[in-house]
């Protein structure tokens, strides 16, 4: 199985462990990823706020490159995925944009979860699991961009998505039911209104604690960075210590498939999951 790969800026920086774990587990599952040569930024959560043309034009070059290569492109970052898909829709609907960027829509843009949840790959995940994550209680946190806007992302369900649940079940984790699967952590205002973000993030951490989760699992670099890096501030505000590991689903797949030094990924988090996972005999 082969895909074009659009890592995006976060995966080169704050979400390095997502990049490394996504590539590692893809390889182990027999998926070959071809990075789009010298890709540029998709415009993230800023372009659409400032200028309609930038919103469509920034992802356009890489969409065209991917179409020339001819393979569907996978964008593990939930934010990049939305931006690329939104741009491809707009180009296909808008003759002026199409005249400038002759994208024909012959390739699909897949999210990381979509790729991993594909029938063939999901069954490979199941059959290749040598270290089932027994005793690990997790809450799947999709956040906004993995499901919204629904007409762009086309999730299985915008309120109760199940793809990550299924993947976590396949590797033997106990998936807990909780009400904040798709609530917003405030990530887009991490720097501008940190006070608000602390409030929203604390709500999510508190609910995960209330249902007895060992970790929150996500696929979104903004959610991960936000929930992970802000726990020190939240602890100071709340007067109690928050130590909730925020893990990427691909890191846990890496643990389940075995044979990788997964600790190097967990060590990159502010709240490392290492002790918790080691305590359960999983790493």
């Amino acid at each position: 199985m082969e895909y074009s790969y659009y890592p995006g800026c976060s995966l080169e920086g704050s979400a390095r462990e997502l990049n490394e774990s996504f590539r590692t587990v893809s390889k182990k599952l027999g998926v070959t990823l071809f990075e789009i040569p010298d890709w540029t930024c998709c415009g993230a959560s800023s372009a659409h706020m400032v200028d309609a043309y930038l919103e469509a034009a920034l992802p356009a070059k890489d969409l065209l490159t991917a179409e020339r290569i001819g393979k569907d492109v996978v964008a593990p970052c939930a934010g990049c995925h939305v931006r690329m898909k939104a741009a491809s829709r707009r180009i296909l609907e808008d003759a002026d944009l199409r005249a400038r960027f002759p994208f024909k829509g012959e390739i699909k843009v897949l999210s990381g979860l979509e790729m991993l949840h594909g029938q063939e790959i999901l069954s490979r995940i199941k059959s290749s699991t040598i270290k089932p994550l027994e005793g690990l209680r997790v809450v799947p946190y999709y956040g906004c961009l993995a499901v919204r806007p629904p007409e762009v992302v086309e999730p299985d369900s915008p309120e109760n998505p199940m793809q990550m649940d299924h993947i976590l079940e396949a590797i033997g984790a106990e998936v807990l039911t909780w009400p904040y699967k798709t609530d917003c952590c405030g990530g887009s205002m991490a720097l501008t209104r940190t006070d608000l973000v602390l409030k929203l993030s604390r709500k999510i951490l508190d609910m995960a604690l209330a249902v007895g989760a060992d970790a929150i699992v996500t696929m979104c670099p903004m959610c991960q960075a936000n929930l992970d890096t802000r726990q020190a501030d939240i602890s100071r505000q709340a007067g109690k210590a928050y130590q909730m590991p925020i893990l990427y689903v691909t890191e846990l797949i890496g643990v389940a498939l075995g044979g990788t030094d997964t600790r190097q990924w967990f060590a990159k988090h502010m709240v490392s999951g290492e002790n918790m996972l080691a305590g359960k005999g999983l790493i």
Partner: protein
Amino acid sequence: MQQAGYGVPAGQVTPPAGDLASVINQCYQCGKCSAGCPVASEMDLLPHQMVRLAVLGDVAPIVASKSIWLCLTCHTCGARCPNGIDVPALLDPIRHQVLKNNVSTQESNVPLFHNTFLKTIRMFGRVHELTLIGLYKWKTKTFFDDMDLGMQMFRKGKIHLLPHRSSHLSEVKEVFKQSSMK
């Protein structure tokens, strides 16, 4: 049809037109958008109120509000609205005009951040976190906030000292030339 409108800063920010106007006109003020909005408690105009004002062609209070910049673009409202009205889809064109015409705003750090973000893309073709954070903190004089966090991220190899320079930089600059950020 162009709405009558009143109190709109003359010629600066126009109310929604075309398809967008016909979509928002279906709003029956059920309030579901505001009920699920994660930042409703901070807003000076609630999402359903902004929709109503836009239907009336009265965008001036939206332009003058905090809400237009507090909206996180989480699309919870749009996913739930029984009439398919997405508040950020309504706000984006208003925000574009506000920025293009340099209309003064509340919560001005938010547009400042987005502008700085896009400038780093124009510089390098990709985001360079150190440049972005440095420029933003310089402009907002909040240089020492999160210093400790920044150092930790740096030690974990998550912040690069030098930016990646794209070989497609001229194409990126060309894209910016066609936009309002020329």
